[in-house]
């Protein structure tokens, strides 16, 4: 377990064991906050930050925490981190904080975070835990942003609407209007759009995996045939 290379850890977080697409953890915020790219990015980065802090803390104290009480300890750590992040967001990104609302404190219940603490950080040294937190967090963010982009483009015909909430007034020009005079496709904005969109992303990932698998199998077959001829 602990012998996993950094390269492997990163590949797991972004693809093979992605929290959003493979572990299917943290679906509640994933489905609720993926209406626009900016909301998705905001929640994704907040989750990543939480993951980094909690993974590092859990990894640092992993040799002193008795296994019997490890879960309450993890919960305490994660809750403290999330509270700190919530207060920070309230101070520095107030408008975004108001939009994300309950889903910032709810990061504490995101199973992906306690899952990484239990499955990885408690068994690995701090540098590995840090890389794992970054890979998992950014992998989760990538799925959130992809879903947010899909829903925003289909639902409103824009991308990066309200970017100023995150990047300040300079980013107002970032908003891309894909289709002028778009009538809006409410289904994509409403909750069913989140479920359908995530289903399509899952199908896409499985299709890509299947394609790669088949190509690898063909190459193996070609390799084993060549020496004989």
């Amino acid at each position, binding site marked *: 377990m602990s012998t996993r290379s950094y390269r492997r850890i990163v590949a797991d977080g972004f693809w093979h064991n992605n929290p959003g697409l493979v572990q299917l953890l943290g679906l509640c915020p994933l489905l609720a906050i993926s209406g626009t790219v900016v909301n998705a990015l905001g929640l994704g980065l907040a989750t990543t930050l939480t993951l980094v802090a909690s993974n590092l803390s859990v990894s640092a104290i992993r040799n002193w925490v008795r296994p019997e009480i490890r879960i309450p300890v993890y919960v305490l750590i994660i809750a403290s981190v999330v509270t700190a992040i919530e207060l920070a967001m309230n101070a520095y990104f107030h408008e975004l904080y108001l939009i994300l609302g309950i889903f910032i404190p709810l990061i504490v219940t995101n199973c992906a975070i306690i899952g990484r603490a239990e499955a990885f950080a408690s068994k690995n040294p701090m540098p590995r835990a840090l890389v794992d937190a970054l890979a998992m967090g950014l992998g989760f963010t990538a799925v959130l942003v992809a879903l947010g982009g899909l829903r925003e483009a289909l639902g409103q015909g824009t991308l990066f609407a309200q970017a100023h909430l995150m990047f300040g007034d300079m980013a107002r020009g970032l908003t891309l209007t894909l289709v002028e005079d778009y009538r809006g*496709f*409410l*289904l994509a904005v409403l909750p069913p759009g989140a479920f359908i969109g995530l289903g399509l992303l899952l199908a896409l990932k499985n299709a890509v995996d299947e394609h790669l698998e088949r190509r690898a199998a063909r190459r193996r077959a070609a390799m084993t045939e060549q020496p004989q001829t």
Partner: protein
Amino acid sequence: MRFKTFTSPHMSPVRSVHRVMRQVLYGLLPGTAAMAWFFGWGVLVNVLLAVTVALATEALMLLLRRRPVRPFITDLSAVVAGWLFALAIPPLTPWWITLVGVAFAMAVAKHLYGGLGYNPFNPAMIGYVVAVISFPREMTLWIPPGTLADPAFTFSQTLGIIFQGQLPAGLSWDAVTSATPLDRIQSGLGVGQPLGAIQDTPLFGFVAGRGWEWINLAFLAGGLWLLHRRVITWQAPAGMLGALFLISGLFWLMDPAAYPDPLFQLFSGAAMLGAFFIATDPVSGSATPGGRLLFGAGVGLLVFIIRSWGAYAEGVAFAVLLMNMMAPTIDQYTQPRVFGRRARGQEDQG
């Protein structure tokens, strides 16, 4: 080896999907004609457009799924789904709504679930609900019923409205559209108007909305013909219409000023279309005789609830989809007794 049968008049039933679907289409003809009579060319244009989109999407999905195209395209199930969708939408609906709704119905609601026979939800109703949720403004643009002898719009004007969104010169949407009778009752009761005053307006006819009562009567006739040809069974329509009649009758007796009479409910909106053509869907509905009765009753009950207290004026599509979700459970508890056994799955001891 083939055995020749000599005695007894054995009738071999020829029941293929193609044949059933063709008869369903025949059954739809009277109602479609009535709708076209009252709402003009737009109904026929919508039917043609929706059927074309349905066939094209079906062919595309079959190609993508590497299934044989010809046998599935010619089974007419896509035609029926597109046709039902076209009957559910307002007659002047812009073309892109039909495109989005029908394509979603065929691609997502039908083929992503495995194609004909595997879809848990009625594709036409999914398409309608997608359209009604996504484009609430356009999907309420009903026009007051006229007659084909004196149509509100000529054929070319209708084409212009549907495909280019251009109303004839000098007209605005507010001038040409009108609430449906069900809409009118819901909004009227919402602001405290007495039911009698609402129903006194020219929007209403003998028992239900003017025009709508004849459309429902025509769908009833087509449905009874299907029943006579044994394409559908009586349980689902009887369950739905019976439950709708009973529950609306109960509330009408309690407060006739606040609830329309049961006959009005039966001959309004999509009641007859839903009872005979949508609740009887052999794939997404219930499969046991008792189950169909329950399924239909559930639809009728939900239609009344949505019409009376819901956010939408008509609830057949939502009611059918909600009951589609229940159908597997209903089937599980209503399995008929197998001959030679006492109850479900129990061996007969005697």
